[in-house]
């Protein structure tokens, strides 16, 4: 068993970190203050091919695995770009996995290269106000009319819908009363976000101001049948396929953000002198930071374990969910501790850690809540009765 990153993985982490160094703390502080999608950051990664890290080589990607993508996303968040940087590119990394796995060759040729090149941006539209985590009970309808589907309904929390030209959309094609199981009758589309038929309203939120999240209203959006991915009615199954990798990536982002916070806290603890000694000489300051390091490192190992399972074709549900939970919690604790370590200054924007704390709530909550991860582990790993 070898836990070290390979030389190639180290090289790519370093290359990503170097790009990120061009977008320093002031850049992200400014984005946090005034918003505005970090297009130059997105373009810098696209220009050097990073958006296609997991995409198949025949469509312009690098064909690397989830492990490499996780290393990349951790490096982005850890650079201080946090969730603002990570979410700006997150969907590109694995979001279109259902298209890669279930799309036709013609669809892949049409859909993947513009995304990899950074010419197109996509958003991922699953969550609905009246379904929440109970995804199969979503009510957005896509009705077949001739050679197209007509979509009506509503989504919520859809990130980057302000700037995206494309949308990966999960909608119901067969009413829930007409299917045997609620997981059936949902279909997946990758289609143009036609703003004459879709209204996108930004949600004012706690952090990550530069990467928008939105309420999305569909009012007769027409989707050509060519934009249906795989078979009609099997969309939920296809989405499930991409959920584990997505959890692994978000976990890697939380770990990165946690390490960014820990680095700031540690540096401050060494520097700040009160009562004639650096505050970091006090165990009440250093022990929680030591604990943060151990928890983040443990979460990182779970991330890499889950990624390895996925990349080697093993079932990875338990590890992916565990990674997401552990990373979300460890990241949160590290960010909170970083604010506390800075004392009053931790509350000042200039010290960046309060921004980290606001952002780290995202990988705790989304794409699945900690409670639902616990439900999953209890049921699937421990064999306890299903609770939800």
């Amino acid at each position, binding site marked *: 068993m070898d836990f070290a990153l390979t*030389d*190639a993985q*180290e*090289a*790519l982490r*370093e*290359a990503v970190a*170097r*790009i990120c160094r061009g977008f320093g703390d002031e850049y992200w502080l400014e984005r946090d203050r005034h918003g505005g999608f970090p297009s130059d950051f997105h373009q810098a990664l696209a*220009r*050097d*091919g*990073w958006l*296609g*890290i997991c995409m198949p080589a025949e469509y312009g990607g*690098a*064909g*690397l695995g989830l492990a490499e993508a996780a290393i990349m996303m951790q490096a982005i968040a850890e650079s201080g770009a946090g969730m603002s940087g990570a979410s700006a590119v997150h969907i590109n990394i694995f979001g279109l996995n259902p298209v890669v796995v279930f799309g036709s060759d013609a669809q892949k040729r049409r859909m993947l290269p513009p995304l990899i090149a950074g010419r197109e941006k996509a958003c991922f539209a699953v969550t609905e106000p009246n379904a929440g985590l109970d995804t199969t009970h979503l009510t957005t309808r896509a009705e077949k009319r001739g050679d197209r589907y007509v979509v009506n309904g509503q989504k919520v929390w859809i990130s980057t819908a302000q700037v995206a030209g494309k949308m990966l959309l999960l909608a119901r094609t067969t009413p829930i009363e007409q299917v045997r199981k609620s997981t059936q009758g949902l279909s997946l589309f990758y289609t143009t976000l036609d703003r004459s038929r879709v209204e996108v309203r930004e949600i004012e939120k706690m952090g990550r101001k530069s990467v928008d999240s939105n309420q999305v209203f569909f009012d007769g959006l027409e989707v050509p049948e060519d934009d249906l991915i795989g078979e009609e009615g099997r969309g939920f199954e296809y989405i499930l396929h991409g959920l584990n990798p997505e959890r692994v990536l978000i976990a890697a982002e939380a770990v990165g953000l946690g390490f960014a916070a820990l680095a700031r806290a540690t540096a401050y603890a060494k520097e700040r002198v009160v009562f004639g000694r650096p505050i970091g000489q006090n165990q009440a300051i250093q022990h929680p930071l030591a604990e943060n390091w151990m928890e983040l490192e443990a979460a990182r190992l779970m991330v890499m374990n889950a990624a390895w399972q996925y990349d080697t074709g093993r079932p990875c549900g338990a590890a992916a969910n565990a990674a997401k939970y552990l990373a979300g919690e460890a990241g949160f604790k590290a960010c909170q501790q970083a604010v506390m370590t800075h004392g009053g200054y931790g509350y000042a924007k200039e010290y960046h850690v309060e921004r980290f704390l606001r952002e780290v709530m995202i990988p705790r909550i989304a794409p699945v809540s900690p409670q639902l991860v616990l439900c999953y582990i209890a049921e699937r790993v421990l064999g306890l009765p299903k609770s939800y």
Partner: protein
Amino acid sequence: MKILVPVKRVVDYNVKVRVKSDGTGVETAGVKMSMNPFDEIAVEEAVRLKEKGVATEIVAVSMGVAASAETIRTALAMGADRGILVETDVDLQPLAVAKLLKAIVAKEAPNLIIMGKQAIDDDMSATGQMLAALLGWPQGTFASKVAIEGDGVTVVREVDGGLETVALTLPAIVTTDLRLNEPRYASLPNIMKARKKPIETLKPADLGVDPAPRLTVLTVAEPPKRQAGVKVGSVAELVAKLKTEAKVI
């Protein structure tokens, strides 16, 4: 035109260097290593010459432990075409490196060698000059501008007090200074391609060179800690201290 670019694996410039407790050197175990920054500038300059159509092939050479292959990979990812690793665990001093490079030059017959003006580990700033002497080639050291014209190269050098321009006849050696260019980041497709580019591995003996150190390091020590300065309240106090304490005026 073929360009040879020597690249050295050194402790990363971001790492706080620590002296080994026995004073025999600096700690490198578990320390992040990278390509010497001046060598990155050299690779960048060579790649730009290739992009302009001036150079046709770039060969990156590294000498030292097996892990130096990774430094070569970095150069390949930036745009070098192939690599040569001279593998040895011997602690290589500038003269040994220059001799090994001379042997590689005999084998490869490059028209131009672009190398860092110094490596940030020992800051010797000697290898380029030694190699020029061994080969009997002209040298343009501390370059901040390089232009190939016909069978010559014009080098603007950073010297004390200003810039000096020298014209050299190829084949020649150029050593890079900081302002020559800003090295690029390797793109992902290029990192992938680099893994397929060939690296030839040789031993010093294959090149007929004895790399044994000629200098003996007696001890390596940390520089003395800087003492805190003194704050003075006024110009008068400053002048007084300079007179009575520092005794410089």
